[in-house]
């Protein structure tokens, strides 16, 4: 392709000794043509200087100048276009661009999938946190309801007060227990007697001239504060042969009053049962 290709054999032979010996001026295997060249005793350096100075306008010089102009032009243009801002993709070949585009598509797809996954995860978490919130709300609600039953929270609502004055000391624990049972049967939701909350585990004992409720001695008059439906509670106490009549038979004074607002504020500490465990989840 280049001039060098024109005479490969001589070139090759001349190169080899030039590399090895210290005196390249007289290569031992020089071809005849080379010796003829050396006749004018012109070295390469002299030829270079001769070519450069003085400037001669010859056909060869002009043609070479034209070609070199083209080369310089192309070089400068290529360098300029390569160093432009968008040079990264500018010089790229079509297949490279296609590959880059494919990679970008893949990447976009992957990121899209990742985004979808994360979004569904987020939705899931939001739902579950909503559900957790709902569950918590229901739990709190349930706790309140159960707290009313267990006596750990105060309660208020419509109900009745039942006052038993037992000046003669004839009222015994079982009568009060009957009253409590009757109230429960009539739908009483929260009961307290003289400041003691009556719950599921409440027991009543006779204790001297009074009555013990869960070990707390209470004296007459016994005041029951009961939350429930007054229309059910009052008749339940007043039925013939019921609590009121039984107590009155013992010469106690019994007063039943309906009230729109009864406050049961006697509390009881929540106790963890020692043996019983919840068998449900």
């Amino acid at each position, binding site marked *: 392709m*280049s001039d060098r290709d024109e005479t490969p054999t001589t070139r090759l032979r001349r190169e080899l000794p030039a590399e090895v010996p210290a005196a390249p001026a007289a290569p031992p295997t020089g071809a005849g043509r080379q010796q003829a060249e050396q006749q004018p005793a012109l070295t390469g350096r002299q030829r270079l200087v001769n070519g450069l100075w003085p400037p001669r306008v010859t056909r060869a010089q002009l043609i070479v100048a034209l070609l070199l102009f083209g080369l310089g032009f192309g070089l400068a243009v290529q360098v300029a276009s390569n160093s432009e801002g968008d040079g990264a993709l500018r*010089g790229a070949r079509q297949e490279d661009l296609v590959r880059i585009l494919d990679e970008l598509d893949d990447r976009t797809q992957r990121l899209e999938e990742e985004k979808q996954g994360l979004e569904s995860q987020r939705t899931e978490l939001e739902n579950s946190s909503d559900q957790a919130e709902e569950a918590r709300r229901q739990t709190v609600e349930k706790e309140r309801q159960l707290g009313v039953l267990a006596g750990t929270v105060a309660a208020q609502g419509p109900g009745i007060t039942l006052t038993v004055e037992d000046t003669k000391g004839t009222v015994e624990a079982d009568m009060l227990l009957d009253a409590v049972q009757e109230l429960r049967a009539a739908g009483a939701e929260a009961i307290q007697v003289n400041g003691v909350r009556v719950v599921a585990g409440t027991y009543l004992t006779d204790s001297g001239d009074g009555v013990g409720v869960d070990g707390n001695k209470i004296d007459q008059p016994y005041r029951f504060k009961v939350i429930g439906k007054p229309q059910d509670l009052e008749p339940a106490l007043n039925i013939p042969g019921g609590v009121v009549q039984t107590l009155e038979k013992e010469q106690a004074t019994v007063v039943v009053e309906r009230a729109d607002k009864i406050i049961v504020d006697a509390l009881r500490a929540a106790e963890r049962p020692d043996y019983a465990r919840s068998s449900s989840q």
Partner: protein
Amino acid sequence: MIAVLGLVLGVVAGLLVGPEVPAVVEPYLPIAVVAALDAVFGGLRAMLDGIFDDKVFVVSFLSNVVVAALIVFLGDELGVGAQLSTGVVVVLGIRIFSNAAAIRRHVFRA
């Protein structure tokens, strides 16, 4: 001297004009430039050897450019354009280096 002036003028003109490279020749221009460089080094060496011939130089210059562009074009068509242009650049680079070595020996005697 005129030739060197031509090269300098070309570089200056290319930088000043700064034309957009047409999309058609865009993949071939870098390879063509490298091929032309190879031809120029070959020519320089031939001149130092005293066997420079302007006709040979013109033909080798143009054919270098054309063949390099052709190889790249063929490579693009075959789908191995990137590898093939790398190969062309490597081969031309080796030739440029060996030519440069010969020139160096002429000029510096080393």
